[in-house]
């Protein structure tokens, strides 16, 4: 052994390095296979444990929550808590399985079973750990806690969640926003005032779902946030909500913003005006068409078709005949078709006169088999 060491120090540097790396690689390789063994073993044990516990958990949940008689008032319902505790929910992994099950059931049920599931969760005191986790150092812990509270519909003291709206981690901020939207009684839209970084599209989808599912709050007039003082992503999000709730009164606020330099936002405003069928916006859209980039032109043509008042048919026909880009020609034709009865004669006349590509575009637009 001494000889090897003595020789080693005599070797050139690169041979020394190669030998050292080889030894590390052999040891590392051994560790890698050990980890594969351990991970697979752990996964196997976990799967087995889950497979054993899940039927028991489901049986208890179904028996005492889902199939519980509906004649007892919600407040008077009691659960055999000891039976649930016997499952071993004090252990972290069992608790996780159990809470995941509760969340899954809660997602799939509405009404009384949904409320009972929340009751069971709080009666078992499972929310205490979750609440504690809101102030833990691990961001993953905070995110999981927020997610659990949202999924189980358990509100906590808002002062605990408020600082999280400004957390350095974006996923924590996102969770805190969702919490407010979902569980705050008096200020579910408070978060919109605090947004200074882009509200990502994923967040918008998530919050849109939560807001549209909430039936216990008064939906505000979204024109309040359709203003240049708010972040463009907030405006964009509120446009979607205004369209969903058919808030026709938001039209003027949208029109006020049409001069924005943000092209994407302008396109979204035009889109929303079309979807809300704001007839007052029609002349403005027609007037601004020529100076617009491609994306806004496309939205204007679509919006005019959605509004469908018949006032813009001449404009649409002109664009159909003069535009060079096929997508714009296609949208002009689609919008004419969307006018239905109002454009029947015009369409017949155009079809009689059109040849080649223009004829194909008209056929395309009128074909019910082609949706887009």
């Amino acid at each position, binding site marked *: 052994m001494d000889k090897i060491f003595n020789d080693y120090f005599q*070797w*050139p540097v*690169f*041979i020394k*390095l*190669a*030998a050292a*790396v*080889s030894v590390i*690689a*052999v040891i*590392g*390789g051994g560790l*890698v*296979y050990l*980890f*594969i063994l351990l*991970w*697979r073993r752990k*996964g196997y044990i976990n799967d087995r444990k889950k497979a054993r516990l899940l039927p028991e958990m489901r049986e208890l949940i179904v028996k005492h929550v889902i199939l519980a008689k509906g004649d007892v008032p919600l407040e008077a319902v009691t659960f055999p808590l000891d039976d649930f505790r016997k499952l071993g929910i004090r252990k972290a992994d069992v608790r996780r399985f159990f809470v995941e099950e509760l969340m899954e059931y809660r997602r799939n049920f509405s009404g009384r079973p949904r409320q009972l599931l929340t009751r069971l969760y709080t009666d078992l005191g499972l929310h205490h750990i979750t609440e504690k986790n809101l102030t833990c150092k691990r961001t*993953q812990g905070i*995110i*999981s806690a927020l*997610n659990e509270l949202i999924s189980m519909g358990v509100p906590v003291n808002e002062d605990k969640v408020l600082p999280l709206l400004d957390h350095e981690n974006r*996923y924590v901020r996102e*969770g805190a926003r969702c919490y407010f939207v979902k569980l705050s009684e008096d200020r579910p839209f408070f978060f919109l005032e605090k947004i200074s*970084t*882009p509200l*990502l*599209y*994923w967040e*918008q*989808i*998530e919050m*849109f*779902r939560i807001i549209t599912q909430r039936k216990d709050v008064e939906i505000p007039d979204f024109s309040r946030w359709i203003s240049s003082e708010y972040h463009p992503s907030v405006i964009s999000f509120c446009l*979607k909500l205004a369209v*969903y709730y058919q808030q026709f009164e938001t039209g003027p606020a949208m029109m006020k913003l049409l001069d924005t330099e943000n092209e994407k936002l302008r396109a979204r405003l035009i889109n929303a005006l079309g979807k809300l069928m704001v007839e007052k916006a029609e002349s403005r859209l027609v007037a601004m068409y020529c100076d617009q980039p491609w994306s806004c032109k496309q939205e204007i043509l679509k919006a005019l078709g959605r509004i469908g008042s018949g006032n813009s048919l001449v404009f649409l026909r002109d664009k159909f005949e003069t535009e060079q*880009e*096929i*997508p714009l*020609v*296609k949208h002009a*034709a689609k919008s004419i078709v969307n006018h239905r009865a109002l454009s029947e004669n015009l369409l017949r006349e155009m079809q009689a006169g059109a040849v080649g*590509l223009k*004829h*194909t*575009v008209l*056929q*395309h*637009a009128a*074909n019910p*088999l*082609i*949706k*887009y």
Partner: protein
Amino acid sequence: MEESIWYYTIRFYEGAIFIYCITIFSLYAVLTILSARNIRKNIRLNSFRKREILVESPLTPGISVIAPAYNEAATIIDNVRSLLTLNYPRFEVIIVNDGSTDDTLKKLISEFRLTEIDFAYDSRLPSKPVKRFFKSTDKAYKKLLVIDKENGKSKADAVNAGINAAAFPYFLNTDVDCILDNDALLFLIQPFLDEEKRVIAAGAPLRIANSCEVDAGMLTRVRPPRALLPRFQEMEYVRSFIMGKMGWSAINAVPNVSGGLGLFDKEIAVQAGGYDSRSFAEDMDILVRMGKYMCETKEDYAIRYIPQTLCWTEAPHTLKVFTRQRVRWGRGLVQLFAVHRNVLFNPKYKKLGLVIFPYNFFFELLAPVVEIVGILLYIYFIVMGMVNWPFAIILLIFVYTYSILISSIAVLWDQYTFRHYKSWKEVLGMCSMAFFEPFLYHPLILFSSIKGYLNHLLGRKHKWGNMQRRGFKRQAA
């Protein structure tokens, strides 16, 4: 004097090779760490992100799934059915019949009750002429659009035609014979919705389906390939996707999104000129052009990879088909550097010019050349009796053990994330490939790459062969 120049040249080459080797191995080590962090981040993200909300949301963006088909009559019906049942709220499936000489189109027409329609086709991207368009009269297949075009002798040509007809802002480029995970679109769209930067492309790992069990176009049991050649490819895919691409994705320096499965921002792909049908590495070429376009328009962008395996494909199972494929890839790489030579070390192209291209130039393009020169030099040393055998053996052990370590870590990450293989035997079978790969598989890759380079330099004509598919093992009824 002459002898001393030769001596110093050789010593210089030895030193340079060693530094080259240490650099590439260090880079692998860095990629290993980056990929681990990225995979972990993705798994954590998915633990609280419910992608199911995309299914219910009216805000979910639409995706056009584009799948070219050339003489796929044997499997086309199952494969199209599988694509039509993808779990996503807003998508269309565009099958581009690329001038098939068998009855692919006939089968599609009769099975899906297709009728010819007038379609306002916008030929923004170049492709061979499109002859006809078909839509189904059956509402169950309303998402299907079939394009019948002249054969363009490349997938790129067919995909361009598909993009021209696509209605949605994103398109998925796949092969009609690939088996996609049912949630593939839900997974792939996530990076596009979840970043401040504009994500222009996203990909996910591909795996080999040769020994998997398939039922009506759906995967029912994942197995590593039984045959040696596909199994080596599986190992290579695991290493390349799980470790390589995930590592590069962590620093937003993904070099390419596989042609078998990639979701792209249509607007940027069109602005960049779409696929180049003359390119032998069209998947890397389009990404380079999209990246160049973003840099030239000064827009921040990202290209992402996610670790979930979402696509299973049949790998070449004969040496002939395999080498033909790899020769084409090798040729494509040289061609790429020839076409986009202005990108290399160009700060205007940011990471593309300063990280992705230099890495690919030194460690992908030059690697086979360095290796071949090294082997020739080694033979020369042996013949001349100039080899210090103990040191030579140490160096060989160094390269061998390190390559095994890297491959093994790739398997480890794979096992940590998804545990696709059911039994221990299957995992061990995969691990064992790492030990034989340097002797059996790597020389094949080396030979094919060099052949591809020579073909390009000598301007030889490339023969496009159709890969004869064996089909998948069907699940017993």
